[in-house]
């Protein structure tokens, strides 16, 4: 049995969202198990299952190096550019 991660799209217009995992011997069984386990109450209209070992993820230890530089790039935010009140609709 392999571990598969399950992603569900609640309705058209939304993206798929991670909901949990299932065990299955192959992708088809993973799909069926995901349906039984995660959509008993109309929680979705589309399912993705992904072999867990195929997921590449960032390392929590690299969090600072990866994500913190954004904090000193405040010029990326609109509030970095204050104008006089006379300037409207911008």
């Amino acid at each position, binding site marked *: 049995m392999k571990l598969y991660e399950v992603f569900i799209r609640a309705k058209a217009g939304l993206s798929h969202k991670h909901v949990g995992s299932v065990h299955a011997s*192959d992708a088809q069984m993973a799909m069926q198990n995901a349906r039984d386990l995660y959509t008993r109450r109309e929680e979705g209209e589309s399912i993705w299952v992904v072999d867990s070992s195929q997921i590449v993820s960032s390392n929590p230890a690299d969090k600072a190096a990866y994500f913190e530089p954004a904090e000193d790039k405040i010029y990326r935010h609109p509030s970095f550019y204050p104008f006089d009140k006379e300037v409207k609709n911008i």
Partner: protein
Amino acid sequence: MYSQGLRDSKAGDDSPELLEAFQKRIDAEEKIEPRDWMPQAYRKTLIRQISQHAHSEIVGQLPEANWVTRAPTLKRKLILLAKIQDEAGHGLYLYSAAETLGESRHKMYQDLLSGKAKYSSIFNYPTLNWADAGAVGWLVDGAAIMNQVALCRTSYGPYSRAMVRICKEESFHQRQGYDIMIKMANGTPEQKAMAQDALDRTWWPSLMMFGPSDKDSTHSNQSMKWKIKRFSNDDLRQKFIDATVPQAEYLGLTIPDKNLKYNEKTGHYDFSEIIWDELFEVIKGNGPCNQQRMDARNKAYDDGAWVREAAAAYAEKQQNNKEVA
């Protein structure tokens, strides 16, 4: 359900700096996610608690399964089946959450089957008449909801998310149980007597589901500090009693406690001292149905062996075909 028989967690060999940084995150209400650093004892406590919780959901299917073939109407049968299927789902959500901590579901499940792992003792009581299906939903799921709502804000992300899913489904369980109780309590005198009998037998075990009194609960402190657990056993028990007594009155049934009385001063119901000796016997394995429950789980697992083997053989064949093509 809730966890039972947790031992006191010790801090282990983790460095004081890391422990302090971790505690800071907890205090700031940050959720801990699977690949974050965490103290060994935090991980161990969670694996034990979540897996016991999962086992309880799985074994919890059995008392009600007793009534599936004898449900009084097709509608009740369908409802009961749906409820039991939910409980299997709850078990799987929880095993899935525990696996993110590095424990395999296979190992956890083997521990259940061998009798090494604990599950909630409430499921070692028999369901003797149809009203038990009602009392279980109303009281057992009702008590479980109190615990589970409190756990939705637990500090470990995957556990918290599993609890949110579970809580959404539990309300149906409690309401369908109470619905059965309403029918029985307003039926013939015999039916009403069955409802009262089910309440008499289920009441005290339900109160014990919240675990020992705070003054006797050794493992609570560290779990509270790490926000694995967020409310004390006694607080949750009181909340359950306060919510449930008026529901029993509405049914015209009597809660089997002659000291049960609303206390104007505290705004809560006073109740008798709980007699724990019986529960400890059940935990030790001497409850009315311990053996029966374990036998049923083992039989189900063994009977399913050919399905697992067939699925594995099929997957392997598909894989080989792909490689040839």
